[in-house]
């Protein structure tokens, strides 16, 4: 069985956190201050510290289904960081009733935990179970929005669509088992996946990937994203828009060994990516609601992520991991600003940004940095990430994909810079009612903006880590 508890420290620490939240939710009185769990940011900081400390852990456990390597540890650290940032603005979330707050936080913690397991899963069934853990937890929190029926509708859509996706994935898994005879990724890596060679397995893989692509919100499994983000609470949207994408990216990187560049599957993914980008960017142009717009932008970014997969090189995988982590930072920063725009917890629109540079210059600056990073302008990390992705795909037969990506970047400039335009140049209309921020949130916002800029200037260290992680996976 090969169980070594030292290799599991990140997961264990997060599980302990979730268990603590469970205890709070079960034991404390309904409206007690304890339910707000102000200790959560410090606890998640501790979890992040444990993850960073375990970056060099290596090992295989549970009969080869659970692998601890460079890739898994980087992603676990990223997920812990994402959870930390979320924990900074969720305790005061306006959109959640006080008596449900501890449960809300507990489910978020379990979702993150499931994502951590996902990044270490080395076998398809383990992978599926981990994905389900994280999805189910999210199903529970999506409808948790105070006094808002749209949230319930969003929740139902998410559950139904998700159920369909995972059913398809399970179906695909059965085909893979039939076609290749094993579920272990390491064994599947050397096998023939072409349609001519093994049609059942090829179709099985495509279907299995549908489940993963659902979490990633890649075309054509993206339809849920704009509605769900718009419907759910602001803070929940922040979590749901970023962290699952990280998990999905980790899975795709791990499965990349199966996807040789000239296979039909790979080409299919590339087509999906191109459609995703284009659809996401074009639709975002027409949006007024900020969260809906960010939902579409998330679809577009999923497309960018998958470019790294198409080329099939170690640089591509490294670029994909790098971009996933950078996307976490950019998107979280943007959501952080969005969440603080309204103190009543309603959905913010573009006009809510007017006059932000005068009323809250710090918020405006963080927004500007994250908007530029999402577009992909230098000197931000978003530019670096896109650069790595595009250069990895250019010389490997996917030049058309690169061109599509570049055109899409140009399209995206409009709506991202609208954020900037409203914040800096438009005058505010009536009274301003920004949500109050605690100092931890401000620190987090500043740190995120700084990290985006620093990684834009000095991407080397993180990229090298991601590259090393990616190289070991390819045969």
């Amino acid at each position, binding site marked *: 069985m090969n169980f070594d508890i030292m290799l599991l420290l990140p997961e264990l620490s997060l599980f302990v956190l979730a268990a603590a939240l469970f205890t709070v939710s079960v034991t404390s009185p309904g409206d007690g201050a304890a339910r707000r769990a102000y200790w959560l940011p410090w606890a998640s900081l501790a979890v992040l510290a444990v993850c960073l400390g375990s970056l060099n852990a290596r090992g295989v456990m549970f009969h080869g289904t659970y692998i601890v390597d460079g890739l898994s540890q980087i992603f676990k650290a990223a997920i812990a960081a994402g959870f930390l940032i979320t924990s900074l603005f969720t305790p005061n979330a306006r959109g959640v009733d006080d008596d449900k707050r501890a449960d809300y936080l507990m489910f978020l913690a379990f979702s993150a935990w499931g994502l951590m397991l996902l990044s270490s899963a080395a076998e398809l069934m383990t992978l599926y179970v981990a994905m389900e853990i994280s999805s189910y937890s999210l199903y529970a929190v999506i409808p948790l929005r105070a006094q808002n029926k749209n949230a319930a509708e969003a929740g139902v859509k998410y559950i139904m669509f998700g159920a369909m996706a995972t059913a398809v994935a399970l179906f695909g898994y059965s085909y893979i088992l039939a076609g290749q005879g094993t579920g272990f990724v390491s064994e599947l890596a050397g096998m023939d996946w072409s349609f001519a060679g093994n049609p059942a397995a090829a179709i099985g893989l495509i279907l299995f990937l*549908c489940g993963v692509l659902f979490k990633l919100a890649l075309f054509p499994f993206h339809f849920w994203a704009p509605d769900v983000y718009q419907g759910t609470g602001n803070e929940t949207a922040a979590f749901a828009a970023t962290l699952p994408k990280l998990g999905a990216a980790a899975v795709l990187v791990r499965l990349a060994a199966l996807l040789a560049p000239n296979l039909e599957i790979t080409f299919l993914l590339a087509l999906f990516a191109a459609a995703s980008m284009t659809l996401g960017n074009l639709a975002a*142009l*027409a*949006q007024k609601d900020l969260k809906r717009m960010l939902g579409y932008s998330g679809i577009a970014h999923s497309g960018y992520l998958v470019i790294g997969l198409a080329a099939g090189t170690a640089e591509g995988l490294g670029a994909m991991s790098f971009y996933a982590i950078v996307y976490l930072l950019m998107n979280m920063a943007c959501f952080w600003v969005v969440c603080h725009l309204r103190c009543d917890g309603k959905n913010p629109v573009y006009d809510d940004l007017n006059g932000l540079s005068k009323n809250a210059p710090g918020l405006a600056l963080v927004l500007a940095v994250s908007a530029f990073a999402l577009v992909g302008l230098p000197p931000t990390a978003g530019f670096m990430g896109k650069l790595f992705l595009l250069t990895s795909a250019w010389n490997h037969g996917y030049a058309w994909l690169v061109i599509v990506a570049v055109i899409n970047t140009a399209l995206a400039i409009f709506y991202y810079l609208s954020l900037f335009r409203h914040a800096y140049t438009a005058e505010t209309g009536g009274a301003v009612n920004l949500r109050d921020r605690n100092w931890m949130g401000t620190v987090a916002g500043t740190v995120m903006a700084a990290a985006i800029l620093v990684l834009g200037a000095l991407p080397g260290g993180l990229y090298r880590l991601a590259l090393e992680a990616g190289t070991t996976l390819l045969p």
Partner: protein
Amino acid sequence: MTATNSLLAHPAVYFLLASFAVPFIPGRLLKWLLPLPAILAVLSVIGLDHGTSGVLGWVDTELTLFRVDQLSIVFAHVFAIQGVIALIFAMHIKDKGQHMASLAYVGGGFGCLFAGDYLTLFVFWEIMSVASTMLVWLNRSDRSVRAGFRYFMFHTLGGLFMLGGLLLRWADLGTLAFTPVDPSGAMYYDWLIMIGFCVNAAVVPLHAWLPDAYPEATVTGAVFMSAYTTKTAVYVLARAFAGFEILAIAGTVMCVYGVFYATIENNARRILGYHIVSQVGYMVAGIGIGTAMTVNGASAHAYAHILYKGLLFMGAGCLLYSAGTAKLTELGGLVKRLPLVFIFYMVAAVSISGMPFFNGFVSKTMTITGAAEAHRTWLALGMELAAVGTFLSVGLKLPYFAFFSKNDNPARELKPIPMNMYVAMAIGSALCFFTGVYPEFLYKLLPIQEGVSVYSPYIAHVTEAIEHPYVPYTTWHVLQAFMILGFTGLGFWAMRKVVVPHAQRNVDFEWFYILGGKAFLAIFSRPFAWIDTRWSEVYRTVGLRGLVGSADGSARFDRAAIDGVVDGTAKGVFGIGGALAKLQTGRLQTYASAALLAAIGVGVLAFVLVK
């Protein structure tokens, strides 16, 4: 032995630091602290070992700040001693700017002496140039400002020649090392460097700046300037160009040229300036002839010259300070009220003339004998003639018309001379006398002697010079010197009515420089001015109108065509986006079916395309 000297022992450090510190030291204290850097320099120079230190890496080459060998030591020795004397002479000056300039100037001089590479040399060279210009400008009269400007321009030109030469040399050889140049293999860049050196050495025809600027410097500034610029140039010529025939000839020309002009000049300091040209001529000729004895003679002569020329300028400076003028036509009969100035001046005058028992005798005769023994008869004769002329104008004409010749006019006001000036002159006189009667003191410092490796491989007859060192005090040498001097004196007496100075300025080579400048202007200004007028016309009529017209057109094109296209496409894209957004119907069943259909559709497309 080659030990390395600490950079703290570099005399330039003391002077440059002192120069920076001057503004912060109150005047009363400054007066007494002034000679301190020079005293420290003397102690330091005495304790220096031969060797190289202060090597810095720069770009892809090395800079050497502190290269010490016998040649640099002999010059540094006298630089330091003269520094003490000149600073004592300047103690009474209240103007801090002058002190800063003179200290920086001396510091630059030391920097040049110990520079082991051309670039360091250039930097200190320019420091000297700027600082000495300040010494002229700080005299603050209209004439001084003009003279200082001309001086600076000319020295900058010389510096540029040197810079050009050294950069080309670096590009060709790959090193900046300041080493002797082979006389038979000098490249064009070596000639450029030599021109730069010759400007500072006041080699005819590049010398006109010296008699132009030195009379306009401050009283104390001229004492400094008489020593450092020209002798630094002599040092660098000795280091790099020993044995170059052209220097031998140029030097002898300088010897006689200087004394000829000095004979007909009126301004006492201008006379002394021309004598600098003349005496430096001895040194340059000695370097050019390039035997060990002449090079030693040139170094010894530099040593002695700094001392007695400083003393001469101090004497003339006292006259200027006290009587308010240096013009011989306006002076006269001053011996009654300035007897000490007269005595000290005469000590210097007989030194420069080469009278036995004074230091000129032990140095000048070495050079002349060296020239004669190298069978350069005409050069030696020229030098002897210059010796006659030197005594004539410096030793006889100047003091006669300044101190005697007229009756003393009691109504004439003479400013009292501060004690420090007398002290400085006394020290200078004592040293002139001491080094004259005890030549071993000086000879022990010479660059070519027993036990010291010769600094340049292009110097001839080294072994003869070491085995048969020059002995100045032989009966014949003394007799010959007295004969020349005595009969020159007789000649002066005979011509005393003819040699009377007239109030005039004698035009020198600056006439050619001005001519060159005018020619340059004429060649370039007329045609270029014409072209410029025509061009402005064209610009105004055709160019400007065309520009405005095309700007107009582009603006219209931009607004109508480009903006139209951009706005049009933007609207189009927006419209597409809006349409696409409508695909999100909000109905789950639509989503589910659309997802599956799209997946299958794209999947089929993918398979088809890959086939």
